[in-house]
C-alpha cells in the first residue's frame, strides 16, 4: 500500500460510504427542549431593558435634587454677575490712572482676594453655596465647552495668547481667566500671566514669556518691545512669521495702537526676511477666521479650535468650508459630515441655522464642539447670536437650543496651574 495514490473517484467513493449517523432522541423530547430554550431566550430579552430602565430611574432619583438646585444656583450666578460687572466697570475706570504705576509688586496679584469668597458673601448662605458646588460638578461630567462665554466673566479678565502648536504650523488662540485686579491694567495682567502659561502641558509649544522687555505707555496705548541681542525671533522665517502674528494679535486683543521694536535699547530689530524694522505695522489681512479642530493631544483629547483666515463670500460658504479637513495644516473638519443645514435668516446680527432632518444632532462632546466652532466663526462674521433649529434634542452640553446662543467671548479656554 505504501506510496499508493488516491484518485478523486476513490475518495468520493470512500466519502459516500461514510456511515450514517443518527440522532437517537425522540422528536417530542427535542421539541420540548427547544420550547424551554426559546422561552428562556425570550425572558432574557426582557430582563436587560428592564434592568436598564431601573438603573435609569435610580440615577434620575439621585440626580434630580441636584439638578433642581442647579436651577437655583444659575439664578444666583446672574445676580452675582451683575454685581460683579458693576464693580469691574469701576475697576477699569480706575485702571487708567493707576496704570503708570508698573513698579507694584507682582506678588500682590497672587495675594489678591479670592472672588470665591465674594460669592459666598453675596449669597450669604454657605450651605446653599456648597450644594451648588456639587451640582456644578455633576454638570461638568457632561461634555464641557471649550470657549469663554459671557457667564464665565464674573469678576474675571480674559487674556488671550496666540500660541504656536507643536509643529509651529498653526497659531492657537488660548484664553485664560484671571481675577480682576483694580491695581493693574489689562496689559499688566497680560504680562504677569505670560510666565504662568503651561503651553507644553496643553499640547502646544513653549512660547511665553516672550524673550523681550515689554513696556507699555497706557496714555498713548503704545507698546515697546525690547529684545536682547541673542533673541530667537529672527532665527528663521518661521520664527519671524510667528512673531508677526503674535504681535498683531496682541495689538488687537489689548487695543494697542503702536508697537515700537528695539534691540538692547536701540531702535529696531534686524529681521532676515523683512530687514531692519523699528515700528511694527500689522499687515492688513482680508477674509474671515474660519474655525477648525486641532487635536494636539491625540484624537480623544479636547480639540483646540483654530482659526484659519479665508476669503469667502458669506458665512454660508464658511460653514460649508468647515466640513472639510485641512490636512495641509493638520486641522480637522469642525462640522461632522453627517450634519447638514440651511442658513435660514440673517438679520440684526442674528444667524439662524436649520439642520436637515437627516442630521444627527445629539448631546455629546463632538456636537458640542461643532456648535462652538459655528459660534466662533459666526462671531468673526459679526453675528451676535446664533439660533439652531430642528435639532433632535433641546440641549447640548450647556447650550439650550430653544434659545438664541450668544457667540463666545474667546476661543479655547484653558486653566492656569494654581
Amino acid at each position, binding site marked *: *500500500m*505504501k*506510496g*499508493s*495514490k*488516491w484518485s*478523486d473517484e476513490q*475518495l*468520493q467513493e*470512500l*466519502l*459516500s*460510504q*461514510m*456511515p*450514517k*449517523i*443518527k*440522532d437517537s*432522541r425522540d*422528536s*417530542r423530547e*427535542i*421539541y420540548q*427542549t*427547544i420550547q424551554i*430554550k*426559546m422561552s428562556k*431566550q425570550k425572558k432574557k430579552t426582557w430582563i436587560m431593558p428592564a434592568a436598564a430602565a431601573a438603573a435609569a430611574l435610580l440615577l434620575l432619583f439621585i440626580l434630580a435634587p441636584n439638578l433642581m438646585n442647579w436651577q437655583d444656583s444659575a439664578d444666583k450666578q446672574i445676580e452675582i454677575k451683575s454685581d460683579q460687572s458693576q464693580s469691574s466697570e469701576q475697576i477699569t475706570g480706575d485702571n487708567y490712572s493707576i496704570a503708570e504705576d508698573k513698579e507694584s509688586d507682582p506678588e500682590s496679584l497672587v495675594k489678591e482676594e479670592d472672588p470665591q469668597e465674594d460669592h459666598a458673601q453675596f449669597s450669604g448662605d454657605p450651605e446653599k453655596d456648597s450644594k451648588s458646588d456639587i451640582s456644578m460638578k455633576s454638570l461638568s461630567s457632561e461634555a464641557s465647552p471649550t470657549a469663554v462665554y459671557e457667564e464665565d466673566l464674573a469678576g474675571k479678565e480674559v487674556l488671550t495668547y496666540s500660541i504656536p502648536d507643536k509643529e509651529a504650523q498653526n497659531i492657537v488662540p488660548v484664553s485664560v481667566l484671571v481675577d480682576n485686579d483694580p491695581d493693574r491694567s489689562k496689559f499688566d495682567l497680560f504680562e504677569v500671566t505670560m510666565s504662568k502659561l503651561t503651553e507644553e502641558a496643553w499640547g502646544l509649544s513653549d512660547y511665553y514669556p516672550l524673550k523681550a522687555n515689554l513696556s507699555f505707555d497706557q496714555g498713548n496705548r503704545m507698546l515697546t518691545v525690547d529684545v536682547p541681542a541673542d533673541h530667537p525671533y529672527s532665527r528663521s522665517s518661521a520664527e519671524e512669521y510667528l512673531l508677526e502674528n503674535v504681535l498683531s494679535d496682541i495689538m488687537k486683543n489689548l487695543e494697542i495702537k503702536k508697537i515700537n521694536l528695539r534691540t538692547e535699547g536701540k531702535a529696531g530689530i534686524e529681521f532676515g526676511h523683512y530687514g531692519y524694522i523699528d515700528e511694527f505695522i500689522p499687515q492688513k489681512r482680508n477674509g474671515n477666521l474660519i474655525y477648525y479642530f486641532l487635536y494636539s493631544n491625540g484624537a480623544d483629547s479636547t480639540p483646540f479650535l483654530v482659526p484659519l483666515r479665508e476669503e469667502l463670500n458669506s458665512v454660508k460658504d464658511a460653514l460649508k468650508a468647515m466640513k472639510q479637513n485641512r490636512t495641509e495644516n493638520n486641522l480637522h473638519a469642525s462640522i461632522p459630515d453627517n450634519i447638514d443645514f440651511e442658513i435660514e435668516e440673517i438679520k440684526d446680527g442674528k444667524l439662524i441655522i436649520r439642520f436637515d432632518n437627516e442630521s444627527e444632532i445629539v448631546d455629546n462632546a463632538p456636537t458640542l464642539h461643532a456648535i462652538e466652532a459655528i459660534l466662533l466663526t459666526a462671531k468673526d462674521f459679526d453675528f451676535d447670536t446664533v439660533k439652531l433649529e430642528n435639532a433632535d434634542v433641546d440641549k447640548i452640553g450647556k447650550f439650550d437650543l430653544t434659545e438664541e446662543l450668544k457667540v463666545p467671548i474667546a476661543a479655547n479656554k484653558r486653566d492656569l496651574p494654581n
Partner: protein
Amino acid sequence: MDSVFDELYKKYHQDVFQFLFYMVKNKELAEDLVQEVYIRVLKSYERFEGKSSEKTWLFSIARNVAIDSFRKQKGWKQKIMEKFDWSTQQVKDELPLPDEIAVQREEIQMIYRCLDLCTIDQRLVIIMRYIHELTITETADSLGWTESKVKTTQHRALKVLKNHMEHFKAKEGMDNEGIKVE
C-alpha cells in the same frame, strides 16, 4: 406539537443532525446544535420565502450554527480552561472514534480523521457534496457562494485529503514494518 417543527423533523432531522455531527465530530454537541437550528428556523420561518429550497435553507442555517459554535469554542474562557485543564488538552487530539466510525474499515476511519485537516470551508463542501450528495447548485445555494467557488473549494479539499491520506498511509506502513522487525 408545532406542525412546522413536525414536518421539518420528519423530512430533514437526520440529515441536519448528520451534517452537524460531521462538522463538529461530537454527538452531544451536535445534539445541542440541531436544537439551535430548530430555534432559528422556527423564529424565522415566516421569512422563508421559498426563494431557495427548504433543504438548502436548512443547510445554510445549520452551517451558520456550526460556524458560530466554532467561534464560541475559541472564546477566551475555553482558551483559559484549556491552559489549566491538561487532561482535555491531551484528549483533544485523539478524540475517541464514535462507535459508528470505529466499526468501519481502516480507510473510512482514516478519511474521518483527515477531515480535521481541512479548513472549515473545505470541510463544509466535502460533507455537503459527498456525504450528503448535494449537487453543486444546492451546495452553492446553502453556502451562499457561487458555483465556481464551490468547485474550486471542492478541488482543493480533495487535494488536501489526498495528501494527508497518503501521508497517513506512509506513516502507518513504516509503523507496521517496525513491528515486523521486532
